[in-house]
């Protein structure tokens, strides 16, 4: 049994994947990722002994949201230590778009990183399999530079997804906005083969994919003292 947690956006979700491939999905109320504990407690009223592995949407995304999912799972895994598959939240979105749009050849996922920067990652469909574009992996990109190069990456039917899509103008076709939020059931389906292949890892040293240094490190801003 696989417990999958995706809290990289305001619309978090939890899924439970069974050995037969079926997946149970529970969405958290919008902006209420901290309800994660209640949802998991409801899904496993007798405890999580039957869980054999975890999947976690590791980001990029909301720093707070990512830490909610990660820290909750670190506490949970203290009791039930199991291998975890940490999957890019952008990869989850891309998978959703490819599932809904079989004719798409690439999906560029973008979110606003402020200060005219974007967190972006491009995914390609290659002989039926989805893989990250090594030319544009998940990372922090300058908005103007990214926009200027969009034409170079044309590969067929290229789709744009993610809450930063509106910042990139109208040069790419936008995927249905309902697909922009990474879902835990998609995460569970992506993680299952990795975990079966023994690619799970221990969760203790895991960190979110922030892909950005703290603002203070960039600007030297400092909190005035302890609260």
């Amino acid at each position, binding site marked *: 049994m696989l417990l999958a947690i995706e809290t990289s956006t305001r619309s978090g979700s939890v899924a439970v994947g069974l050995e037969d491939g079926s997946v149970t999905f529970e969405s958290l109320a919008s902006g209420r990722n901290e309800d994660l504990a209640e949802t998991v407690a409801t899904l496993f009223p007798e405890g999580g002994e039957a869980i054999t592995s975890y999947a976690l949407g590791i980001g990029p995304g909301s720093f707070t949201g990512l830490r909610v999912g990660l820290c909750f799972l670190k*506490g949970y895994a203290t009791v039930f230590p199991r291998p975890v598959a940490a999957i890019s939240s952008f990869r989850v979105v891309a998978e959703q778009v490819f599932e809904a749009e079989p004719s798409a050849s690439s999906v560029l996922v973008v979110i606003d990183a402020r200060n005219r920067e974007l967190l972006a990652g491009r995914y390609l469909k290659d002989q039926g399999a989805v893989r990250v574009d090594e030319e544009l992996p998940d990372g922090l990109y300058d908005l103007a530079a990214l926009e200027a190069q969009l034409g170079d990456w044309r590969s067929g039917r290229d789709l744009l997804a993610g809450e930063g899509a509106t910042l990139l103008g109208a040069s790419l076709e936008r995927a249905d906005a309902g697909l922009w939020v990474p879902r835990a059931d998609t995460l569970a389906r992506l993680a299952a083969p990795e975990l079966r292949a023994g690619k799970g890892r221990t969760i203790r040293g895991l960190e979110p994919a922030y892909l950005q240094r703290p603002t203070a490190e960039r600007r030297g801003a400092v909190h005035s003292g302890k609260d």
Partner: protein
Amino acid sequence: MIVLGLESSCDEMAAAVLADRTVRSSVVRSQVDLHAAYGGIVPEIASRDHALHVGFVIEEALEKAKVTPSMLDGVAVTSGPGLIGSLLAGVEAAKGLAVAARKPLIGVHHLEGHIASALLENPAPEPPFVALIVSGGHTSIVLVPELGGPYEVIGQTRDDAAGEAFDKTAKSLGLGYPGGVEIDRLSQTGDPTAFGFPDVMPGRDNFAFSFSGLKTAALRLLERETLPLTGQRLADFCASFQDAVVENLLGKALRATRRSQTGRLIIVGGVAANQRLRERALEKAKGHQVQVYLPSRANCTDNAAMIACAGMVRLARGERSPVGLAARAHWPLQDLGRS
């Protein structure tokens, strides 16, 4: 009763296991080195480090205590006040552990934790007593009828906390971070009468503090000096500033204790580790016929044993927090214990 405590309200990630009033383990990961380059705490850096290390700290505390999650009677966690991103790391991990182990969860007020730190000592003070809570983020005089509240805040700072004033003045002197420790060290060889500082917020009935005023007075005095201060002059300045803070704190706390007629004063929080404060508290208490309780230095700074202790008291009363427990950046101590 065996309780796991977690504390992550600021720049320390801590976990501890308490068996009744015995500390079976206490693990503290300090971030002082991470923030030193900035001269203060950077909230996002604190949050990231907490999220990275929370699992390691919990496991180390359980292993040192030779306790498994199934042996716990509850999980206590600081749920406020503090830096919200820092709090969240401890709160979510505590929720995860409590849900998985199906153990009771209790959210603890950080300042109640500091008050409870005195109960980990031998001898421990019996309530009622007055608590002087003095740290980098808080400076309050509180009447404690019993642990769990309700508490009466007799006086508190109107601006900076005492520890914050130490750190900021240290920064003005070009000392390292955290500056309070440096000022304490340099003061050992200084003359506390060398520089004159004003008595801020005076008056027998005034239990409020203003350390911003003392900090400003320090800046005015430094304007007359050739900077940077070095050698004996630096030591004298540190000793004088420290003495002004200490006398201000103790004068008000001891007067409040006498007025409360409890006869007992506990001094808790990070600044309670200050050598001059500890010495003067014991000296001055004699004249006020007050018994002073000073926790060991390890129990003064943020730690999780104090959170486990405060949580244990509440769990023993049958109190529980919901698994939807949320971190609270702001949480007045006066709100505790109110029905």
